[in-house]
């Protein structure tokens, strides 16, 4: 479904600060895969998502979606294929707009936006039903500004917004990292339910090794811009935190380790 062919991304090219964020990275993702991505700070996790989403352009290599070359497609064109939830809940929602307006913006992802009424009655009913599933009481607050919501509520809404239009590819960029542990768990469970129910192809970056191992059917570990470990299916299901640590403890520093203990 998504093919990355030897992609390389270099920041500050030809300066003293030159940094290779991705180095000839190749990856093939099948439709319906739920891929978790771990790696220490600076391993290239977020850059990988940025490159796939079209917010950053690769220096070398090709990106294909279902065989179509999208290497040069900017973010607003890639939106046709994918939706994304960011780490910061503030990025995924428009604070000064209402819940229903935000959902309407999200529903039209990748479509032509016309000069016809945005939040119609029929749409509002649909939003109500969808929000009710979250169990946060947001279905009664459709006309509230999103800025009034808590971080967890905003992130749950952002997740709903990203999946509302059934993207062929869902990108999750440490989307539970900014939430308190309880809320993080709730959002992660909700994420898993939505992904399973809709069989969404997903790339999830996480700092939390438990999350990376417990969810999804495919895990990759990045190190210095390339894939250091790639486990799928049965092998991934059997893998434990301790095994990963004993093998790669050297390269997995900082938060990843903290979350593992």
């Amino acid at each position, binding site marked *: 479904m998504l093919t990355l062919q030897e992609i390389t991304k270099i920041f500050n090219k030809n300066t003293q600060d030159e940094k290779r964020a991705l180095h000839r990275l190749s990856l093939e993702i099948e439709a319906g895969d739920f891929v978790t991505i771990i790696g220490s700070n600076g391993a290239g996790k977020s850059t990988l998502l940025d490159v796939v989403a079209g917010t950053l352009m690769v220096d070398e290599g090709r990106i294909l979606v279902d065989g179509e070359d999208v290497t040069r497609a900017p973010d*607003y064109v890639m939106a046709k294929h994918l939706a994304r939830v960011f780490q910061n809940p503030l990025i995924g929602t428009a604070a*000064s*707009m209402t819940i229903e307006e935000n959902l309407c913006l999200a529903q*039209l992802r990748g479509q032509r936006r016309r*000069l016809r009424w*945005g939040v119609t009655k029929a749409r509002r009913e649909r939003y109500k039903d969808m929000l009710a599933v979250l169990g946060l009481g947001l279905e009664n607050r459709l006309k509230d500004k999103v800025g009034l919501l808590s971080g967890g509520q905003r992130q749950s809404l952002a997740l709903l917004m990203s999946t509302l239009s059934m993207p062929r590819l869902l990108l999750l960029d440490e989307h539970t990292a900014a939430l308190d542990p309880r809320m993080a768990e709730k959002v992660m469970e909700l994420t898993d339910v939505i992904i399973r129910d809709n069989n969404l192809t997903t790339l999830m970056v996480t700092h939390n090794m438990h999350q990376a191992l417990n969810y999804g059917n495919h895990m990759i570990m990045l190190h210095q811009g390339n894939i250091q470990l790639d486990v799928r299916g049965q092998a991934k299901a059997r893998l434990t935190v301790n095994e990963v640590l004993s093998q790669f403890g050297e390269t997995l520093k900082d938060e990843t380790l903290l979350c593992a203990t």
Partner: protein
Amino acid sequence: MLLLKVVPISLEQGLAYALVALGIALTFRVLAFPDLTVDGSFPLGGAVAARLIVEGVDPTLAALAGTLAGFVAGCLTGILNTRLKINSLLAGILMMTILYSVNLRIMGRANIQLLDRPTIFSPFEAMDMNRYVPVILLFLAVIFLCKLLTDLFLNTEYGLALQATGDNEDMIRAFGVNTDNATVIGLGISNAFVALSGALIAQDQGFSDVGMGIGMIVAGLASIIIGEALVKPKNVFRLTFAAIVGSVVYRLIIAVGLRLGLAPTDLKLATGVMVILALGIPAFKGEREGKLKLRGV
């Protein structure tokens, strides 16, 4: 007694300039784009309308042509910013400066008199009644129509995307909106309103002058600040309403000030100080975000 004298003139002036405030609300508040084109697009509307009327064109058509010119000017500022990556403030200043020459070219001189020409307001002159009444009603109708169209537009699918462009550009790009185009369109609409105001005011006052746009932004900002203090802009409908109310109240304050001895030459100084106080007092008090938080300022 004083109020009786100033209210009609303030109402007329306030409504006449309300379209400027509405345009500025669209750029500064909705798009979060501090657009300074206004000082040039206002006289542009007046210049185009005046020149066309002198050439014998129907005054209504002349006003519409002025509006269209404003739309183009706004779009050009947007293109300078989005395509050529020129800083938003500088893009506006460049356009405003360029328009000064353009306006002189259009008019052929610095000032065109329209007193002996037919204007949109001419039919009222013949009427046997207080001139304020029909003029105010006409302005009211135009403002109402523009406000209604703006409210409707901002609630359409495209309008919501435009609002999101000002609120959270990264998000709405991720949902597939080319925010560059949205910015260009938004600036175009805003400056179309401003130019329409210029075209109507030139006809109302009976002349178009190349200098009539100086200080228009600051006056518009003052209007918006006053309006938003009176009408909390909780939604689009109230935001546009606040701009109109603010414009009228601002003109009322100015008219009272002039009656009480404020020199007309000090008008822009007074307006500027008003804006500085409104924006500066919250900061001075040490609040991180003031009550009159103005996006785009």
